[in-house]
């Protein structure tokens, strides 16, 4: 009976402890309640287990007192077990806002990160873009890339490294490798035992730093993005987002005498970046910016028509001045009047694509229907909101947003909406990276490769930790469709709306597609262009996009042409 009671109270106490000890940091009060509630149970169990016949002798009393203290020390041990083992990392990383809205976090990771000699970031040719140099017994992040290029052109890729504001870009996504927490655990243990400065691992990128700088220069001061991919591997050769920021502005120098002033300088730069006129320099427009694609999306519709040629009837098409998919909605008109004289009547896919005929692609989308449009876009990872992931996981090296075919559920069931989507308007929202991937898939015989930026991660002693081997996402279209699409894109550059691109790369056959995307009623449209070159064996797939840039066939084609020229020149 007595031992039974002891066992029961022991089980109860252990149950309370196991329930409480795994509570998250926010549930600390619940844990403390459990802990205190278990104390009398532990005490009762111990009392029953040690009880002897004698009553009220001093030794008996002292035993009971000792049990009380033992339970006390037991509670302390359990709290230690939770604070230092079970929930240790969660508590150490716990960030809270206090009553005044100030964020409170553990200072130790910050101090530790200052002490680490973080790894270097190098471009595809091994030239060092970012490195750390020791300053006293701490380290500071320095940017050799600023000696040769405008550092703002690289800010969206390398990101910033701040002891106060955290990290962005590759500094954030590869933090575990750059700080050496992952990859060379053995070396790190040795460093900590010998109390030597811990060293991080080096990243070698697929990026062509010269091309990156040239592409940023071609974009000039305009707000926009440039993406250059190697279609056969998915390697990112350039990824420009303008405006950028100078990562040196956020890099803390522990060597300065006046640390307050140094912190003040960083705080001020951070605040300058937050003001509206700065144009969101922290946003990586190339992978996170979501824009209506305009006519470049006709490429996807064209693939859908070719892949479903039974219902799509690619070669049976006209380019009327207006097209009325829904009698209750206004008619669709072409951007340029009198297009039929250029495309011919009846026309074919190549010519309506080359002259970017809206009414033709509206008809194609209507023929395909909502389901096939969703299916075709899905092949290029342009999803529907039902999937509900806002981050695009196809790119893992940097933060990227999911491109969407439409926003509102059931949108494509409206005839007019479906028709609009066919020529790239409607509710489409895509990232420049996604459109570059569409071009790259066509250039790679229909196979879309996973885009990547980090080629290798190496230990400070040169040992290889990981290397990226090209990964295919999927075959998006048949080989024949890819070939047809290359032809269509070539037609754009040969005689269509985008001819000007050829003049920038003399002697090299290019293909492309322009886009002029309307976003706000009456505002200057976004200029788009996607391109591939050289046509016989494409080495580059390009997407450029200028916010409020104007006509895709002029502004876009020119920018894409300059980028391609730079790509060939810096090979």
């Amino acid at each position, binding site marked *: 009976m007595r031992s039974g009671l002891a066992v029961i109270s022991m089980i109860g106490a252990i149950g309370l402890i196991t329930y409480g000890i795994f509570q998250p940091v926010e549930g*600390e*009060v619940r844990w*403390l309640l459990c*802990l205190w509630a278990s104390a009398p149970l532990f005490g009762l169990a111990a009392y029953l287990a040690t009880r002897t016949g004698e*009553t*009220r*002798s*001093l*030794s*008996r*009393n*002292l035993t*009971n*007192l*000792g049990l009380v*203290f*033992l339970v*006390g*020390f037991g*509670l*302390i*041990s359990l*709290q*230690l*077990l939770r*604070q*230092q*083992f079970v*929930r*240790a*990392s*969660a*508590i*150490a990383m*716990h960030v*809270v806002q*206090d*009553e*005044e809205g*100030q964020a*409170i976090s*553990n*200072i*130790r990771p910050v*101090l530790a990160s200052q002490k680490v000699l973080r790894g270097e970031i190098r471009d595809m040719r091994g030239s060092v873009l970012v490195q750390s140099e020791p300053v006293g017994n701490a380290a500071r992040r320095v940017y050799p890339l600023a000696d040769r290029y405008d550092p703002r052109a690289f800010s969206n890729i390398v990101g910033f490294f701040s002891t106060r504001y955290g990290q962005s870009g590759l500094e954030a996504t590869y933090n575990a490798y750059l700080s050496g927490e992952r990859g060379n655990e053995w070396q790190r243990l040795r460093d*900590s035992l010998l*109390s030597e400065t811990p060293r991080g691992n080096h990243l070698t990128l697929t990026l062509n730093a010269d091309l990156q700088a040239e592409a940023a220069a071609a974009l000039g001061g305009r707000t926009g993005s440039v993406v250059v991919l190697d279609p056969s591997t998915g390697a990112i050769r350039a990824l420009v987002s303008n405006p950028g920021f100078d990562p040196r502005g956020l890099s803390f120098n522990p060597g300065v005498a006046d640390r307050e002033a140094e912190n003040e300088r960083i705080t001020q730069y951070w605040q300058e970046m937050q003001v509206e006129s700065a144009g969101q320099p922290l946003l990586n427009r190339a992978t996170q910016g979501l824009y209506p694609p305009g006519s470049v999306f006709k490429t996807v519709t064209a693939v859908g028509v070719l892949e479903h040629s039974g219902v799509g009837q690619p070669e049976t098409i006209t380019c009327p001045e207006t097209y009325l998919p829904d009698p209750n909605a206004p008619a669709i008109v072409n951007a340029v009047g009198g297009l039929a004289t250029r495309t011919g009547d009846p026309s074919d896919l190549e010519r309506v694509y080359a002259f970017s005929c809206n009414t033709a692609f509206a008809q194609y989308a209507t023929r395909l229907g909502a389901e096939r449009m969703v299916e075709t876009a899905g092949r290029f990872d342009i999803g529907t909101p039902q999937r509900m992931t806002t981050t695009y996981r196809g790119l893992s090296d940097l933060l990227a947003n999911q491109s969407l075919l439409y926003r509102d559920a059931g949108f494509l069931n409206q005839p007019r909406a479906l028709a609009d989507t066919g020529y790239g308007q409607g509710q489409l929202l895509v990232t420049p990276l996604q459109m570059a991937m569409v071009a790259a898939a066509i250039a790679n015989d229909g196979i879309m490769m996973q885009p990547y930026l980090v080629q290798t991660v190496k230990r400070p002693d040169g040992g290889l930790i990981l290397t990226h081997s090209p990964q295919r996402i999927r075959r998006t279209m048949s080989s024949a469709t890819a070939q047809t699409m290359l032809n269509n894109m070539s037609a754009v550059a040969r005689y269509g709306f985008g001819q000007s691109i050829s003049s920038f790369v003399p002697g090299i056959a290019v293909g492309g597609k322009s886009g002029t995307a309307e976003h706000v009623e009456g505002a200057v449209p976004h200029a788009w262009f996607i391109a591939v070159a050289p046509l016989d064996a494409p080495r580059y797939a390009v997407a450029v996009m200028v916010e409020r840039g104007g006509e895709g066939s002029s502004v876009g084609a020119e920018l894409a042409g300059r980028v391609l020229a730079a790509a060939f020149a810096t090979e």
Partner: protein
Amino acid sequence: MLTRLRQFRGVEFQLLFTVLVFFAAGYMLVMLATRQREFVATLPGLLTILWPSALPLLLFIAVSIGLGFKSPHADQVLLPLVALLAGLSLMLTARLEPSLNVRYFCTAVGGEVFPCYEGIASKQSLWVTLGVVGLAAMLFVPWDRILIRWLKLSLLDVLDNYRYLWLTIGLVLIFATFLFGVDPNDSGVKVWFDLGLFFFQPSELLKIILVIFLASYLNQHRELVAAGYRLGPLTLPPLPYLVPLLGMWGIAMGTIVFQRDLGAALLLYGVFLAMLYVATGRAWYVLAGMLAFGIGAYVLYQLLPIVSLRVQIWLDPWAQAQNRGYQIVQAIYAMASGGVFGQGLGMGVPAVVPAIHTDFIFTAIGEEMGLIGTLAVLIAYILLIFRGYHIALRIPGRFRGFEQLLAIGLTTIIAVQTLIIIGGNLRLIPLTGITLPFISYGGSSVLINFIIVGLLMRISAAAQQ
């Protein structure tokens, strides 16, 4: 010669030697990790680093050898445990001083700025040395002979017989702190005496005096036939128990009200209840006492801002993490950052926690030595406490009840104090500022704790004869 050899305190000597090696290794590590000294890898190089700082530890060994002659049967485990904790204290103050010096600056009257905690490591060395000397004085000075000549009573009998003198001294001390207490380091409680050379915390002395009085008093009334007084429906404890219950309750509440010293109140009252229970064996006295304390504390919670503030911080330290909850939140971060194996001695940043070298020294252990270190320290305290009770139980209580209760009371001081401060550090109970016995920096605390151990050793020596 053979008897001398038989009296050699082998267990104690071996343990002390182990502690010495532990201290030497730890101290070397601290000196190297905090880059206070350059290490030349030779024996002289080793000795230059260790020499003055290992002195207190060597004194322990000297005391041990001395005990072999004076009272070879005194307890052999107590001294090494104390040496371990004191060694840890020296190691930690040496480790914390440079970190505190770069972080906390004080302004002198003349506007001159200096590090607030300069020299704490050497001061603590001095205190521990003085503590060992005090302990040796308790053990080796022939108190009994001196006192028998003067008062016709042995030391322990003097303590037993003059109980009301002790009570008076204790009460005078309490009232003196109410009146003359100062607050030298802005902690919000006026519990120090300014003695010119140094600050003395009277509550440290008070706890010993109180235990001596209670041991004597409760021993006198031990054989009491339990006959309660009836007061309406309530049965009150018999008068000899009721009076001290009420008196102690009054003292505890007064300490909170007049000095804002929650820690001392909790400690004194806790020790009293423990002794009352051991002497009478009546749990309901203790429960009633706890209830009365709870009611009093609740009333004070409503009335006194400092009490309600402490409780609020305890319930949700994160809400005011930047000001009032700063200390406990930083302590929680420090403990969690320590993990299982700790950051390594000298490798953490314990100085972000205010009062890390006094009230929060357990947190420094947690950060730099991890769960392994904290549990080891807990085990050391448990061993120390249970050794103290063991000593008490080996005394034939029927004839020497005072000594028995005194040993229990002195040990209970260490137990309750350890539980209160570690519990506060770990957010198990509201934080109250008292020291971690033997480890925290601070003169009065170290001296008094060594005197407690000296008394315990003396009682154990007497019990074995």
